């Protein structure tokens, strides 16, 4: 790997190596720019380092403490936050449905939330590129959304027990289902400068670290590409300061490595640390916030799950967690809420399952032991839907300091009214599907997924933090690219869109 001197003024420092940062690092390096990436965690070697054990794999979880408030506090840690080269893609389930064109225009359509300053057409070429680069396994044709120019390069992954049950229940109720699109290989796959990656072996451990490289986390896709083209990935480096000159331009990034401060001089900064750490860094440095929107508009997709026990043997840890999808509810008719949601089948690892079960049902003692004896026969169904921005939902700096001496962030979240009504609709439907499929001892897990919106994109510097090209309205050489810049949550899982937005931001930057 090429190394740069701290004193050398590199073209770009990218903070974060996840879905937002990694595509940018590789795109800029490929164009011949000098790029240094700062990653707070380690660069793992999956085959050697990753155990099939949830507790051991907590080493991939961002464990600097966040404080969670509001009426529906969002759990952080393994629920939504990774650390290491790969960022949260180390823990993502690799669902990669495309957003729909109307996902970008909910304000135009419903008069709520915010439109994006870009649309599906701006991102379509990048979806085409990403699905081939990452090796997305999916059905052709895809049953929902506009027609595509490029088909999925690989056929869908096999359906596990949970998927078969969701298919059974949905068929009875006339809900269309399909194998899902997942950035997980259904056969060995070669990419130039990345090499060969292996087929998925159905470990079902996507959410705790893929040991085979079949899942397209950025550490096995974009980062090797970036290193090939001369980018430097510095690990265990925690960015703390953006140094700004009298003209208001960033001149360097200060970071901690082994408790010691270092500084990298640079011409540009791409801040891609996720929707919690990105605004946190800006607030700590008191930068980039003339709009007052940094930290505001925190969103988390409605992600309610319904679980049940079945007569069949399921072994719910096998196969990718979510092999089946329905997007029939993307824009349901005759409902009392804006936007919509999708449905996904879900398998689950044991500790994740039991943890959610006790927090949702409060079961303990003998009752809990009995429920857990049924683990090999449980399956879940999951929805993923729109969350609107709300005044009540935001991030601020607290008075408590973490082990690095930095103020811990506090995040307030309360499910907004639209989300409540949407969630109720979805929960009723999922309970019905599960009952028809044969579920007993059903219980619901109320949860919200992902961290979104806290440095939103817009066309107006008065109520957005960055413009449509990810550039800060305040600081001419600062770009932000991660889930924080989404002006709306989308109904679909965000990662494919984050990566597409990242490639577009990189291309726009390079053209300047």
């Amino acid at each position, binding site marked *: 790997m090429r190394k740069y001197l701290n004193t050398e003024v590199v073209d770009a420092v990218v903070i974060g190596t996840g879905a937002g940062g990694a595509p940018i690092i590789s795109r800029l390096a490929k164009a011949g720019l000098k790029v240094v990436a700062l990653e707070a965690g380690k660069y793992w070697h999956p085959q050697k380092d990753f155990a099939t054990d949830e*507790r051991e794999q907590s080493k991939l979880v961002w464990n600097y403490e966040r404080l969670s408030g509001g009426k529906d506090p969002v759990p952080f840690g393994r629920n939504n936050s990774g650390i290491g080269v790969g960022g949260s893609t180390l823990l993502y389930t690799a669902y990669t449905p495309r957003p729909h064109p109307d996902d970008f225009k909910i304000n135009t359509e419903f008069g709520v939330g915010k439109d994006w300053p870009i649309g599906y057409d701006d991102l379509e070429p990048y979806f085409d590129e990403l699905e081939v680069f990452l090796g997305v396994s999916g059905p052709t044709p895809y049953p929902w959304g506009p027609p595509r120019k490029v088909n999925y390069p690989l056929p869908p992954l096999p359906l*596990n027990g949970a998927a078969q049950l969701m298919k059974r229940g949905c068929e009875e109720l006339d809900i269309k289902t399909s194998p899902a699109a997942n950035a997980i290989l259904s056969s060995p796959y070669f990419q130039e400068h990345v090499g060969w990656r292996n087929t998925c072996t159905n470990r079902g451990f996507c959410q705790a670290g893929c040991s085979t490289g079949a899942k397209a986390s950025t550490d096995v896709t974009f980062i090797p590409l970036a290193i090939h083209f001369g980018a430097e990935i510095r690990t265990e480096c925690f960015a703390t300061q953006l140094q700004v000159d009298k003209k208001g331009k960033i001149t360097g990034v200060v970071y901690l490595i082994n408790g010691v401060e270092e500084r990298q001089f640079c011409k540009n900064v791409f801040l891609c640390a996720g929707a919690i750490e990105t605004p946190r860094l800006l607030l700590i440095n008191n930068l980039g916030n003339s709009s007052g929107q940094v930290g505001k508009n925190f969103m988390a997709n409605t992600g309610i799950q319904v679980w049940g026990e079945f007569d069949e043997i399921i072994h719910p840890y*096998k196969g990718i967690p979510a092999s089946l999808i329905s997007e029939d509810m993307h824009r349901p008719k005759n409902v009392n809420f804006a936007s919509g949601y999708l449905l996904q089948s879900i398998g689950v690892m044991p500790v994740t399952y039991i943890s959610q079960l006790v927090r949702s049902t409060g079961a303990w003692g003998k009752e809990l032991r009995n429920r857990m004896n049924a683990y090999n026969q449980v399956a879940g169904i999951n929805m993923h839907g729109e969350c609107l921005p709300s005044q009540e939902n935001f991030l601020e700096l607290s008075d408590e300091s973490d082990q690095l001496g930095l103020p811990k962030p506090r995040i307030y979240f309360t499910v907004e009214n639209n989300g409540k009504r949407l969630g109720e609709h979805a929960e009723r439907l999922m309970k019905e599907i599960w009952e028809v499929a044969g579920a007993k001892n059903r219980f619901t897990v109320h949860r919200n997924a992902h961290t979104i919106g806290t440095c939103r994109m817009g066309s107006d510097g008065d109520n957005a933090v960055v413009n449509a090209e990810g550039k800060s309205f305040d600081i001419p050489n600062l770009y932000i690219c991660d889930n924080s810049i989404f002006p709306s949550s989308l109904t679909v899982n965000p990662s494919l869109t984050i990566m597409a937005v990242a490639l577009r931001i990189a291309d726009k930057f390079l053209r300047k």
Partner: protein
Amino acid sequence: MEINSSNITQKVQDFLNSPAITEPTRKALIERIEKANGTNRFFTDYSFNLLSILCDRLMDQDPEDRIVNIALFIDDRLAENTCDGWRYSDMPPDNEMYRKGLKGVDEAASIMFDKNFTELEKEAQIKALEAIQDGTAKGDTWKTLPSKRFFEELLAETTEIFFSFPLVQLKIGYAGMADAAGWKKIGLNESENIETFVSNNFKNSIS
């Protein structure tokens, strides 16, 4: 790395040493089993004993015949000052939560039954825990520490530790750690050889 613990049956040892389990997985599981032989560093002996019994009750484990002392892992975490990445904003930091919470458990037991928690019979202990869970427990501690939250946090951590322990996992018939060859049969009513082995040899039969 081979396991050699005297309190694990030969059958479990052979399974953990088998080719069905990858090296990183084996290493993690063996380390956890050996860690269960440790002693308290964070809690006083009194608090540690109280927490141990509390965790036993939550997991319906017999204190005289434990599969694992869950409190040891909580003690270890607090001694290392590590966390899982978040806490409820209305709760104190974890070490304070546990100190206060344990005090509150004894207070509730005293007010309800005139004895400390560990001096009570199992049925009374369960009643005290139920009161803490549903927010009706009395005591000064609970005026500043939300008892429902404390219970939820304690239960969640206890549960995660218990069901991360290899012997507990085998007891419920979980075979997912044995994925060295991946899984080929993943549909309904499809069990692979390794899963049938775990079910026949370990499910419900580990003590």
